[in-house]
């Protein structure tokens, strides 16, 4: 059985299924990944590179956590909120994580409606994704403020224990928060471009991709899901350990 793929010039390209197809694609001319637009290929490779950055951060955090002789503060207590007189561990982080993971869901819907060329719904879900992302960053700012003002945590030391607790926390969540903020900005730009119809009308240009093709929404989505996935690892390694 052979599948077929539509090329950029509108012709069909016969393809073999499974591994045979992969081998055939890699030994073919022009493109190693058939059907993958340039922007999407670039995003995947960028994310691979970014994975190495976050891995290096997390491995460094684990190393200094082992190298320091001071007591490591208990994250369940540090990141607890007192609600109605009771201390609830990790409640803020749980809400933040829920918000961020939900934004992946709205992003998927935006991509789906994009490929159906439903511009208004795509716009709404992109904006909703951006709003959830901004909420996440806002709650992170609240968490930072609480740690800095109430607990007295500083990058160079804190009253709770190991100095590396504060420095790793601010560095890693700060770097991740920057990623989320950049994502929010670009989500808004793409949302406006979708609503205006730039992706249908404009010649190839900044963040538009090929004419009449909503692949740019999907490329944006790749970045967004990556940022969410990274958060899962930060959550597991920093807050749960």
């Amino acid at each position, binding site marked *: 059985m052979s599948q077929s793929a539509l*090329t*950029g*010039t509108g*012709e069909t*390209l016969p393809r073999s299924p499974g591994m045979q197809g992969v081998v055939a694609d*890699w*030994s*073919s*001319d*022009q*493109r*190693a*990944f*058939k059907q*993958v637009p*340039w922007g999407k*290929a*670039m995003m995947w*490779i*960028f994310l*691979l*590179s*970014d994975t*190495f*950055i976050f*891995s*290096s*951060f997390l491995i*460094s955090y684990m*190393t*200094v956590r*082992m*190298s*320091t*002789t*001071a007591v490591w503060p208990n994250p369940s207590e540090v990141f607890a909120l007192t609600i109605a007189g009771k201390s609830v561990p990790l409640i803020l982080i749980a809400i933040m994580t829920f918000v961020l993971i939900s934004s992946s869901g709205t992003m998927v819907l935006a991509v789906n409606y994009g490929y159906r060329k439903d511009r208004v719904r795509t716009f709404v879900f992109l904006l909703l994704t951006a709003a959830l992302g901004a909420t996440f960053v806002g709650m992170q700012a609240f968490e930072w403020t609480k740690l800095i003002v109430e607990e007295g945590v500083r*990058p*160079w*030391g804190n009253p709770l224990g*190991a*100095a*590396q607790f504060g*420095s*790793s926390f601010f*560095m890693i969540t700060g*770097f991740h928060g920057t990623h989320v903020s950049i994502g929010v900005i670009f989500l808004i730009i793409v949302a406006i471009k979708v609503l205006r119809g730039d992706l249908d009308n404009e*010649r*190839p240009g*900044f963040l538009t991709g*090929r004419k009449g093709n909503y692949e740019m929404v999907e490329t944006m989505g790749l970045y967004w899901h990556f940022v969410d996935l990274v958060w899962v690892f930060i959550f597991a390694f920093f807050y749960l350990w």
Partner: protein
Amino acid sequence: MTYVAHDESAFVPPFEVEEPELYHPKTFIGKYIWSQDAKVIAVQYSITAIAVGLVALVLSGIMRLQLGFPHVFSFITPSTYLQYVTMHGMIMVIYLLTALFLGGFGNYLIPLMVGARDMVFPYVNMVSYWVYLFAVLLLMASFFVPGGPTGAGWTLYPPQAILDGTPGASWGIILMLVSLAFFIIGFTMGGLNYVVTVLQARTRGMTMMRLPLTIWGIFMATILALLAFPALFVSAIMMTLDQALGTSFFMPALVSKGQQLAYNGGSPILFQHLFWFFGHPEVYIVALPAFGIVSDLISVNARKNIFGYRMMVWAILAIGGLSFMVWAHHMYVSGMNPYFGFFFATTTLIIAVPTALKVYNWVLTLWRGDIHLTVPMLFAIGFIFTFINGGLTGLFLGNVPVDIPLSGTMFVVAHFHMVMAVSPILVVFGAIYHWYPKVTGRMLNDTMGKFHFWVTFLGTYAIYYPMHYLGFLGVPRRYYAMGNTVFIPESAQTLNEAITIAALIVGAVQVVFIYNLFWSYFNGKPSGPNPWRATTLEWQTPETPPKHGNFGPTLPAVYRWAYDYSVPGATEDFIPQNQPPGKWAKGLEDKPDASELGPLDSTSGIPKPLTGHS
């Protein structure tokens, strides 16, 4: 004689992707300053890299003056000496070689050799250069800040890199780290372009296994860089925080100048691991493009196909993969577990297998070839010599028991200068002599080129061969002066003087090369489109130098691999990659044009009618 072309096809699939619309600026500034044309960006990268490389060359001359004639030059103090060591190393490895091979040759050759109009993201590519330039300016600025540039050694090991007492521990180190971070950001923008262009923007008929080895080398080196630079980026951020905010990522509790510092509990070894996880692949980021380019130079000038093309490709991939598993061989003396040492020694020695395979294949390409000793060929053959020498001493240093006494001596300096400084630089020179005609339309002067080669090549041996002996004698590296070191004989100093004289001569002769670049731009012999009679696509462009868009109205179609030299039965001793079958072979000359032939099956290898090619 029967015609035996390798990997030839008459059928070329149709275009899968519409051609991109290129942005054609009208003004001089749009064309040559804020240019989105990969070729212009390549020249910008190359000029910047060579300029900053000349600074590093002058620094090395000053270092040699101090080592050869200690206590003669009052402006070289122990502090400035360390600053020169640091800046020389960092500039040469990152700002010259990485930028020149990937930003320079990568930008120029990838679109031309794979048959693309331009890089896939020309705007991002342009930004890449300007971020690189900013990184260079930041680095150069460190010469003018209070305390001067950092003197921590190019490895920037903490804790000393940011401790009071190390030169440039306040401003210099920050500028160095920030400059590195910007370099990495800029490189990532370019690197994504190089990888995606090779993977997704090749022309019709250009399969991966028809790519010239130059492109394979640059492609794999770019992937290594995209995966290795993150470790340096992260360590640069953490060390900046340690210095500026007083965090303790890399800083243990320590006493400096009688004072207990506020640092506590960090891990200096962590920095070494991160640095060398970047640092070892970096060796291959510099070496793989050199391997690729040298393969092409040898094949063109020996008028023979490269021996074992597929093996060469797999060797590049294997070296790339293995290069991520050997980093701790730079850390044998850091007190690590001997079992780790055993592991890293083993992986290090395994890398010698694909590397030796490449050397054999270069030599076998030369074997019974019709060798033209052009200037690029001289540099390519010179590379084989220096690379074998440097590679063999690498086998010494890869073994833990041999490395421990030799590490920290001039032997190491001699080794890595042979293998990753001189060897890639010889290829850079060869490549510039080879592709200068395509960039400018004029040949570089041959006499100056040969003079440049012989002095550089022989001078290399005059400099680095004796340095191995200095290492065996125990002369330490990075020392400002030896002082009363009883176990080192007096003659070591004589040797040092000789090395310095050789180094100064070699350094001075590079002026001839620079002069040649300018002189030939105006007075060089016009080269024509294909002076070396080469097969690859960049020599088949309608204009020389190629215009924006590279290939005129239609992109070329590729019918064969890049190495059809001296094909038996063909009328010329080279067949360009975009030459359709049927026009070359003596046996077919009296037959009708290929386009009039009927369709034939693919197994017979006889031309089918051509579609879509003018």
